[in-house]
């Protein structure tokens, strides 16, 4: 029964970790676009559009079509 002394806290900690991860991803909008996220994974060009340090657009410029 002494194993319980550490098994129970470990179980609670792991569960808590999962909960924290869920709440974090929820607040970061990971579940906002379930359909789009699937497509983004297949997108080879991976255009991350985000501000760089100079305030201009991403260094990874999309190719013009």
């Amino acid at each position, binding site marked *: 029964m002494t194993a319980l002394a550490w098994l129970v806290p470990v179980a609670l900690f792991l569960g808590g970790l999962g909960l924290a991860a869920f709440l974090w991803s929820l607040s970061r909008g990971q579940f906002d676009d379930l359909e789009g996220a699937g497509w983004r994974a297949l997108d080879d060009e991976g255009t991350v559009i985000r*501000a760089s340090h100079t305030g201009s*657009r991403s260094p990874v410029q999309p190719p013009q079509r």
Partner: protein
Amino acid sequence: MAQILTYDKTLALDAAQPDPQRTTLVSLAVEGMHCGACMRKVENALSALPGVTAARANLSSKRVSVVALDGKRNAEVYIETLSGLGFTASLLPDSAAQQTSRTSFDIWKRVGVAGFAAANIMLLSVSVWSGHSGEMPHSVQGLFHWLSALIALPTVAYAGRPFFVSAREAIRNGRLNMDVPISVGVLLATGMSLFQTMRGSEQVYFDAAVTLLFFLLIGRALDQFVRTRAAGAAENLLGIRAPAASVLLPDGSIERIATSEILPGMRLIVAAGERVPVDGRVYKAKSDIDESLLTGESLPRTVATGDTIFCGTLNLTSPIEIEATTVAENTLLAEIAQLMTTAEQAKGRYVRLADRAAQIYAPAVHILGLLTFVGWMLAGYNWEPALTAAIAVLIITCPCALALAVPAVQVVATGRLMQAGIILKSADGLERLSEVDTVVFDKTGTLTLGEPRLATDSPVKDHDLAIAAGLASRSRHPYSRAVVIAARSHGLTPRIVENVQEIAGEGLTAIVDGTQVRLGSASYCGYGGQPIQGLYFRWGSDAPVPLAMLDRLRSDAIDTLGVLRSQGFNLHILSGDQRDSVASAAAATGISYWMAAQKPDDKIREIERLSRVGKKVLMVGDGLNDAPALAAGHASLSPSTAADISQVAADAIFQGERLRPILELLEVAKLTKRRSLENFTIAIGYNLVFVPLAMLGYVTPLIAAIAMSGSSIAVTLNALRMSNPRRGVHS
């Protein structure tokens, strides 16, 4: 960890760096975005524009968020850019997008917490149950109960809040809803378990209480998910179609301002093809105005200096200068909205199936609990086993299956309707739809497509039609479009005609091969007799050739109405259009009960008369003039081409050119009701088995936990049966 935080902060700062005050977030609804490639096209095109810091498309909600300098003012540029790529975009109001996402975020957080607690408490109680037969010491059992209490108490307080709040609200208003027995059950179970834990007893129900909350929250979250998604889709459809207007300043220059900034007395320029942004008076010039959204009348009205002109109508022929008279809340549009609100109050009295069940269920459950307590006391027991048995009854009857029964069915139904191109807007819409026995149609834009087409027996020669189409291709008048479409469908290429002149309210003219040709009204083409509905074409001084126009029925209208009739629905037409055209549409569709030239309040009166004689009316309409009638009907449906306000009033919106979705909608509504009733039966059946056991004191925490989950899973599976249309439709 610290590093990641700093990195994130830098990024956040960078995004705002250009000028924090002027960088704004704009949300656009983008129609026609279907896959990853579309999504990338949209994002790349927008982020390549000057001033745009970031663009992020959301495929699920069909929206794109743009972070940009002065984003609001540039919204039109974004819309233009996207339309160049073949996407129809419109600006969304700020409030709309953010409000909905926050509430669903909140409920999912509670689901997460309840899930975590349920899993851990279950882990502890399973060990206690299995320890019963073995050698688990009493002290360990007590420790586990205390641990469960430690997890359960904050969870119940946090995750149960939506139920407690709603139950308190209901009781304060003297009503009973499902949340009352839920709250009572959960609170009693938790309270008694805490008491028993302190006493070192075995009757501990923390697992049942928390699992119950977890399942209930899932039901609620699903309910909200569907509603948020449907509401979002409806908002996208609405969009704001005229986000900006051109103002003529006193010094003669023209400035684009947002529609919301227009003041009465301002002079505005409305270009051909633009929607009129406010109610006003024509100040200068003459044009044809398409008022179909307001009146249901498919033909444009010719306006000249001094004429009144309404917000939301479409300017067809030439640019006009107008003076704004009323803005925003005072427009005709707002007045119709007022009529609508009044009509809607009747609908507010409708009580949802689940709430009706709760009104019987909640008192019954509480009486049963009381009876159990009294019974045990009368049988000579102590108050303690009596109370334990009574509480066990309340826990067992806690309406987990009942609370899941309706949301689960609605989630599946809404998903199925969405696949069929129907957006369901109100949660109780399906229930009301299932009771419908009379269908009232508007004509223009509902039974018909709302666009005139050239009559097939027109005497015009191909050569003339090609020239007429050449002239017509320079105009936005619905008749002109019909001529071009007719020419194309005859396999003709419209002649290229240069220097076409359009005279508002009259017609078009040009010189072709040295001869003057005219396309327009009877008088304009010099036709002396009784004019037909449509256009005339005149080549030089030849006799004018008539081009008769008809408003075409939706391709499957006759079939669909036939099916509806065979299913026993009463069919009516209520139209604002002229007597003759309504009569011909009624004859074509075989509807014998029709009324023409109906104003919005006439339509309401007719619908109220029908409901007084006990009919449940489904109103199907699109025009602004239908909006009050849509609100007055027992249920209502609009095509997605409908006026904004009609879409707001309708319970559901269908997309596409066909009328068939109405059949699917009514079918799914009936099926939804049947499945909901089945689920109620399952829930009640399970209560019939377990309540007597609980009353006799045989329900242990283990039995409570199994029964609770078992019934929830059963109702969810029953709801899922509906998702397969092939089996669903006629089962």
